[in-house]
């Protein structure tokens, strides 16, 4: 919302103009809202003067140019003058003539229309052999309007509009435009008008604002006699029109043109400009139709009325576009066809043009939600939409239309004729009062403001306030549609009083400790464990492409899809984390990282998980890690990458006090989480103690590797975070320290090559547990070596058995006996 300080002042009873801009902007910031920018127009129109053209003759060397001598009352220094003190200008405008008053941009001044973009600074230069000292300016160059056929002829009669007078003074341009952030005013339709903002500025500066009489008259009525009807009162709460006959279309006066241009409205003609003027002033959009064009679209008597559009109905808008309407759009129509998109934009067929003689001015109120939906649906974002979708007041239509019509007659001649008001009883009065306990207001604000002061703050912005002991009854003026509950009054008083004046103190608190969130804490714990093991935590998007899922062997149909994704790359919610991690491997390898471990903890979504008790998709937190090493720099003898991933998983298990079980697969499991993995080189992982299934660890299938350009030396895991957390919550076990030295024995088992290491260890653990139970021994088993001769069908697995006894030192003989027992048991068991 662009606020012109000059424009606001025109309608303000208090002096807002002389408040310094810095002070004004500071108070706006503290008590009204954010400022996008402040533009001081006096900088833009600096050093530009009114002049009189003393002579204008044809340029000796051009048919189109004129050679002019101008009088600036010798106000500009350092410019070449003739004996009479006049300055020479070469001018290309067809309308330049002797005796006219014009606007001169002397050398060194900036063309105002270029001020905000690339400033163009004038100089003295030759045009076909004749020197021009600066130029005479067109309305467009002065950024007043789009008119550029000729130079601006100054008709204004004032002491400033004389040769040597400042253009900015003559045209009242010493103005400041404050661009206020729209979002701030989502619930303040009145602040989309100069009047509304001016009132707020008065209020926050503790000044009593009084709106102009014409705006607050409660007895304004619109003449009747025009044929209309209102059958959709929930969509169009009020519909008011006024016919004006015998008007003459011309340009608006320069002041109106200039004011509209300042706030971004393009001047068009006196009628359209005035409708825009009152929209900018009051926040109430209006629309003028050409009466005679409307008449031709009526089968009988001239009549317009609002209705819902029909699906597929067409309407050509003022911007020239033809749109297909839907039954959710409001239109203004004759009995034969739609002529305007209600509250959004007028229609081309009934546009006011240079030949218009009679007009119908419509001033209606529309359902804000319907307007927003229509605007979004058709992609039309107009000044009217910005205002109507904030919920304008239904009580201001008649006063605005009456005043607008009066001004139209003044500017364009003509006569007020018949009119229509769907709700003539709605007058520009206050709304019913909201009663609020003064203590409640002070308790919410933490303040101690007396009721009388509250009343004063509110009445400054034209609320009606009655104080009744401890209660104030607050009646909002008709333009406010946001005061409904006590909290609204609290906000109003807090803001007008000044939040910076409120006492600031921390809430008091009991010393009850806050429980930590175990999931969050476990998360932090995992991160620390892994980062201390050289792994890097990554975060990747929750959205992935269908292609990535397919490339990882997953089924995109299992994924929740976005209907408005930014790109196909971000179309699906990920099913598991692994594909996201794998998609980041190749870029890091290419960036020169030869060996790395990345991990992520995050939520995943699978349709197969169904919905939770809220009816929403279940969210499964997963924990995934990927090890990768550049094949070109990796030693061929270091074995399968699988063992690297397993190393990390075992490390985490150790840190969490867990022992994990790795289960060899015999066929490909069909879960989304297992799909990227090569079952021949992967294991299902579970907690040894509880048997809880945790996830999958392993290498990836050949097609995943190919699709994602992964090194063969890539492996990882994905485990269920919740399950891992649950099994890790057990308390760690403690072994009393050994009092007597232990001893160790290495045993080598010569077994078939396909015997699983886990099987051997399983037997070892079984027998050692038995021996622990029967003889009280304490064992630790360490994997020492796994060796297989080339082409041999056997391998030898060497384990180190460390043993001790809490009550005695073991002799070599005893140790040998135990180790023999173990070897025998394992060999017998394996032979079975």
């Amino acid at each position, binding site marked *: 919302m662009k606020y012109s300080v000059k424009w606001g002042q025109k309608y303000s009873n208090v002096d807002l103009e002389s408040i310094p801009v810095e002070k004004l902007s500071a108070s706006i910031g503290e008590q009204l*809202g*954010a400022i996008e920018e402040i533009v001081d127009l006096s900088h833009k129109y600096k050093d530009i003067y009114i002049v009189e053209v003393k002579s204008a003759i044809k340029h000796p060397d051009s048919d189109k140019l004129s050679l002019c001598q101008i009088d600036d009352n010798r106000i500009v220094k350092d410019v070449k003058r003739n004996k009479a003190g006049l300055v020479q200008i070469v001018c290309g405008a067809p309308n330049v003539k002797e005796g006219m008053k014009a606007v001169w941009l002397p050398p060194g001044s900036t063309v105002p229309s270029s001020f905000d973009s690339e400033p163009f600074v004038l100089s003295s230069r030759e045009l076909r052999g004749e020197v021009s000292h600066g130029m005479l300016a067109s309305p467009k160059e002065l950024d007043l309007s789009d008119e550029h056929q000729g130079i601006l002829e100054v008709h204004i009669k004032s002491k400033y509009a004389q040769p040597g007078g400042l253009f900015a003074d003559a045209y009242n341009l010493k103005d400041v435009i404050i661009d206020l952030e729209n*979002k701030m005013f989502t619930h303040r339709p009145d602040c989309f008008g100069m009047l509304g903002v001016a009132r707020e500025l008065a209020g926050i500066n503790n000044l009593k604002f009084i709106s102009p009489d014409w705006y607050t008259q409660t007895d304004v009525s619109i003449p009747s006699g025009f044929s209309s009807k209102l059958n959709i009162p929930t969509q169009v709460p009020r519909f008011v029109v006024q016919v004006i006959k015998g008007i003459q279309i011309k340009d608006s006066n320069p002041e109106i043109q200039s004011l509209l241009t300042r706030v971004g409205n393009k001047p068009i003609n006196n009628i359209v400009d005035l409708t825009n003027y009152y929209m900018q002033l009051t926040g109430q959009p209006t629309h003028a139709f050409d009466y005679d064009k409307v008449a031709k679209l009526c089968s009988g008597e001239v009549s317009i009325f609002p209705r819902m559009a029909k699906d597929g109905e067409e309407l050509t808008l003022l911007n020239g576009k033809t749109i297909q309407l839907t039954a959710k759009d409001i239109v203004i129509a004759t009995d034969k066809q739609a002529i305007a998109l209600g509250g959004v934009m007028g229609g081309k067929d009934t546009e006011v043009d240079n030949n218009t003689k009679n007009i119908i001015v419509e001033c209606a109120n529309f359902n804000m*939600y*319907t307007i*927003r939906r229509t605007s979004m649906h058709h992609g039309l974002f107009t000044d009217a939409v910005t205002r109507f979708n904030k919920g304008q007041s239904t009580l201001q239509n008649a006063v605005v239309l009456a005043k607008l019509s009066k001004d139209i007659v003044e500017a364009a001649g003509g006569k007020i004729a018949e009119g229509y008001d769907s709700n003539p009883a709605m007058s520009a009065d206050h709304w019913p009062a909201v009663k609020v306990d003064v203590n409640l207001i002070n*308790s919410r*604000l*933490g*303040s101690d403001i007396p009721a009388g002061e509250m009343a004063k703050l509110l009445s400054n912005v034209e609320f009606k306030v009655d104080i009744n002991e401890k209660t104030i009854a607050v009646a909002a003026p008709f333009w406010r549609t946001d005061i409904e*509950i006590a*909290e609204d009054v*609290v*906000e109003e008083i807090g803001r007008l009083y000044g*939040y910076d004046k409120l006492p600031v*103190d*921390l*809430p008091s608190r*009991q010393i*009850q400790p*806050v*429980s930590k969130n175990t999931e*969050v804490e476990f998360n932090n714990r995992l991160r620390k464990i892994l*980062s201390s*093991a*050289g792994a*890097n*935590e990554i*975060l990747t998007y*929750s*959205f992935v492409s269908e292609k990535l899922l*397919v*490339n990882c062997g997953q089924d995109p149909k299992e994924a*929740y*899809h*976005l*209907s408005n994704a930014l790109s196909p790359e971000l179309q699906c919610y990920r099913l598991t984390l692994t594909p996201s991690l794998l998609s*980041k491997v190749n*870029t890091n390898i290419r960036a020169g990282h030869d060996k790395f471990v*990345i991990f992520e903890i995050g*939520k995943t979504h699978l349709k197969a998980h169904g919905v939770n008790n809220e009816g*929403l998709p279940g969210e499964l937190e997963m924990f995934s890690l990927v090890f990768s090493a550049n094949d070109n720099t990796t030693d061929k*003898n*270091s*074995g*399968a990458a699988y*063992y690297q991933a397993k*190393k990390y998983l075992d490390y985490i298990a150790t840190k969490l006090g867990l022992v994990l079980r*790795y289960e*060899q697969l015999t066929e490909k499991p069909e879960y989304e989480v297992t799909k990227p993995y090569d079952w021949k080189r992967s294991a299902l992982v579970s907690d040894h103690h509880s048997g809880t299934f945790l996830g999958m*660890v*392993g290498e990836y299938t050949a097609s995943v590797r190919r699709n994602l350009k992964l090194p*063969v030396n890539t492996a990882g895991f994905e485990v269920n975070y919740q399950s891992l957390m649950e099994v890790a919550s057990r308390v760690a076990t403690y072994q009393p320290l050994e009092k007597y030295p232990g001893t160790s024995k290495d045993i080598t088992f010569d077994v078939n090559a396909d015997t*699983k290491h*886990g099987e051997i*260890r399983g037997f070892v653990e079984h027998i050692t547990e038995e021996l622990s139970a029967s003889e009280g021994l304490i064992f630790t088993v360490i*994997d020492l*070596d*796994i*060796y297989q001769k080339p082409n041999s069908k056997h391998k030898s697995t060497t384990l180190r058995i460390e043993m001790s006894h809490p009550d005695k030192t073991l002799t070599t003989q005893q140790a040998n006996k135990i180790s023999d027992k173990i070897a025998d048991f394992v060999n017998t068991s394996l032979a079975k």
Partner: protein
Amino acid sequence: MTYSDPKIAKAFELLKKEFKGLKDKPAILRSNTLKDLFSEIPKLPVEKRSAYGKEVNLLKNEVTSWVDEINNELNLPVIDVTAPYDINVPVEKRPQLLSPELGTIHPLTKEIEYISDIAYRMGFNVETSRLIDDDFHMFTSLNFPEDHPARDDYDTFITTDGLIAPAHTSTMQNRMLINYKDNLEKGLPIAVIIPDRVFRNEDLDATHEHTFYQHEGIYVAKNVTVGNLIATLRAFLSEYFQQDLKAKIQPFYFPFTEPSFEFAIERPDSLKKGDTEADQWLELLGCGMIHPNVLKHAGIDSNVYNGFAWGGGVDRLVMMKYGIEDVRHFQSAKLDFLRQFV
């Protein structure tokens, strides 16, 4: 994979059978069953081609993966997954953890831990947010009527099932108010912060991400004042920046708070900028007194209890802290970026 087009589903079954019987496995890619599916495309009505074509491609991909799996060159032998390391690998080449020096925690999660720690110390519970939510939690329970223009400020991603990728952590407010309602009866406040991931339908550039992190704070008790809000946030941010800082609020509009503010804090020494008035302040949060309708939606009597809420970005704090030039680095998983945050 399941195929919805009956023709493709049938072809899938046929191909599976064919593949089993084939000696020359890669020949499956030249099978007529597959070719016929492709030659079907031009015969279809235009509007059906894209969906059909997509599925055929998915099928071809799946069939290719069968071939990949038996392709000897790519295919690797079974390994003993129960072993601690591969056969014949000498001691010095066995799996090892990488050097601790290389390991890092992501700067965003580290920041969230830091923020959460302050919140704990101030008596707040820490919770996480959902990544798929519904219209009720994202909007309705927060006093955004349907078609309200305030919804325009949240460019939300919608799923084809009509669900929402939350555009703010406030999507958890209603749940938190309900979950912690018992606190009020025990005479304790509801005090929760929710740092987590949110989404906005915004084109990516150096300062805009469609995926980023926010933290939400909620405080509800008896007789909570605007001054409590200002003091709490000031204390929180002063602790965050390790410096006692001035604060100021600016009126704002959110449907779920009344009154609503933008909260600015004095620039800490570590982030000093120029000398203008605007340079003195850092706008960090949106906040306000919780709207009675929001409390009502959670079954809390707004005549007895009231409170405040705030929400702020995490990414921007981290970018300022380290001088990170491009927000896109956060989710890039680039090790060159991540390894700087030791």
